[in-house]
């Protein structure tokens, strides 16, 4: 398992992937955090779906981590793309046969890859947290947001909770990407179907069918990142997402173990 982990990291650390992903993570975090502060007094809202997060909310202890937690959905999409691409490319490049000759225990290979990509996801979340926090302090003056509560113990606890929730959400998105990569065995359909479902289909269903958000995996993964919201409670979101991912993982685990590697 540990050998699979380090072998996978040799691929993940290549500059084009590592720097590219960190660039994307930095950009989406900077965008979301900046809009949160710069549109603070805008009538059109300063958060997702036109929601308004007030100055007094931002001045609370957890205010420093709101930008970070608001970035979770986009961070999740980045994770989905990376996990899906890294998994499906093994089929399109034909490299899976090399990997399986060197590590014939297929589930060990799969788990090692997953752990390596999860650790990669952890780094993206840390980077996002750092970018968001620096930007929050930088923009607080211009937005006239008092930061006294941001340096208290409560703020650190809130940041830790947010960090854990965002990380869990990112890993869940990434797991969806890996499942799709294993199902479709090609990065383009895996990523496009995943993104289309999460960004378009779920939002249409959520907007047209009342209370459907509490059953939609994408909505629930965002709920996990925010620690529970109007869509669903945190525990419901954790339970449902775990059930969805476990079912998906079992299906693709069986397929991966039994399927012939013919390409």
């Amino acid at each position, binding site marked *: 398992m540990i*050998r*699979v982990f*380090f*072998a996978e990291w*040799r*691929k993940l650390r*290549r500059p*084009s*992937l590592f720097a590219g992903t960190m660039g994307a993570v930095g950009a989406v975090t900077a965008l979301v955090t900046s809009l949160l502060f710069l549109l603070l007094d805008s009538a059109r809202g300063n958060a997702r779906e036109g929601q308004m997060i007030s100055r007094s909310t931002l001045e609370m202890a957890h205010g420093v981590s709101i930008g970070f937690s608001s970035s979770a959905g986009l961070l999740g999409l980045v994770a989905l793309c990376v996990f899906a691409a890294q998994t499906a*490319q093994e089929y399109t*490049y*034909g*490299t899976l*046969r*090399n*990997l*399986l*000759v*060197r*590590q*014939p*225990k297929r589930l060990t290979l799969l788990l090692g890859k997953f752990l390596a990509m999860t650790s990669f996801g952890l780094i993206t979340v840390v980077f996002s947290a750092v970018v968001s926090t620096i930007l929050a302090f930088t923009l607080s003056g211009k937005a006239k947001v008092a930061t006294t509560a941001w340096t208290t113990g409560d703020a650190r606890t809130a940041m830790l909770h947010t960090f854990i929730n965002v990380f869990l959400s990112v890993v869940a998105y990434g797991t969806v990407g890996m499942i799709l990569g294993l199902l479709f065995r090609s990065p383009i359909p895996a990523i496009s179907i995943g993104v289309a479902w999460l960004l378009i289909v779920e939002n249409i269903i959520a907007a047209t069918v009342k209370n459907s958000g509490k059953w939609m995996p994408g909505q629930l993964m965002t709920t996990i990142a925010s620690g529970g919201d109007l869509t669903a409670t945190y525990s419901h979101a954790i339970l449902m997402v775990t059930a969805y991912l476990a079912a998906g993982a079992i299906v693709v685990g069986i397929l991966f173990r*039994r399927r*012939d*590697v*013919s390409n």
Partner: protein
Amino acid sequence: MSTLAISVKDLSKKYGDRVAVSHANFEVPLGTVCGFVGPNGSGKTTTMRMLLGLISPTGGTGTILGEPINHPERYLNRVGAMIEGPAFYPALSGAENLRVLATLGGYETGQVQSLLERVGLGDRGDSKYKTYSLGMKQRLGIAAALLPNPQLLMLDEPTNGLDPAGIQEIRELLRSLASQGITVFISSHLLSEIEMISDSLVMLRKGKVIFAGKTQDLLERQQPTIIAKCLNTQDLPKLIQIAQSAGHSGSTIGEEAHILASADWAATLNTLAFQAGITLSQISPVLPSLEETFFEMTGDDE
């Protein structure tokens, strides 16, 4: 301890109604070079994939280095393989690609440079794989197969895309590996290459093994030919007649008589021709090449 590197019994693979490999039986002794030949689609790659645990047989059994093929984890750490051409990550260098596989297999990553040098890529190891020519990719594939310091090397068309000098280098490399006791199981369309390096041969046609054994035995099983030239070409029909009256069929091809007879009848032919007043300017017994044998046995459908 088994003396066989590969042993398969009734190995079969079906995809729906299509039979890819049907009841294949063959053995490859340890320390030999075995050629694996057959027309396109005859089941060579499918068989190799079954031996490597990449696809599951629908029937039959087999062992690799004494271990059953349904437990590839027991033998693959002693097997090097390149199946259906090289496959690596385009954005990584050749050396880094090898390090990925070395790390995965638990092999020393420090050997990567020496392996690259061994296959003639010593100065291109840091170049990205996507910049490699087909021949360089093949060489990298062979280097990857050598990572585990294998007891058994399975190579599928390793000389594809190589120029004549490259083919010769790979031939020398395989000979050197064989001299170290490594068993080599190699498929190739270059039958002259296979003939030069292999001790034994497995020939497939439409998923069935049509020959498995020593290469020499196969060639000797085919009808040998004596090619003779007369000083006076007008004597050729008379020479054919002499051969036919001795029970050997023959025909004239250009200025040569091709008589189907074994090499040891050449002296008799020479004597009979002399007695008939025919002077032979050349007489040479010829064994059919592997290529000729292959086409004869596989029905020329390659």
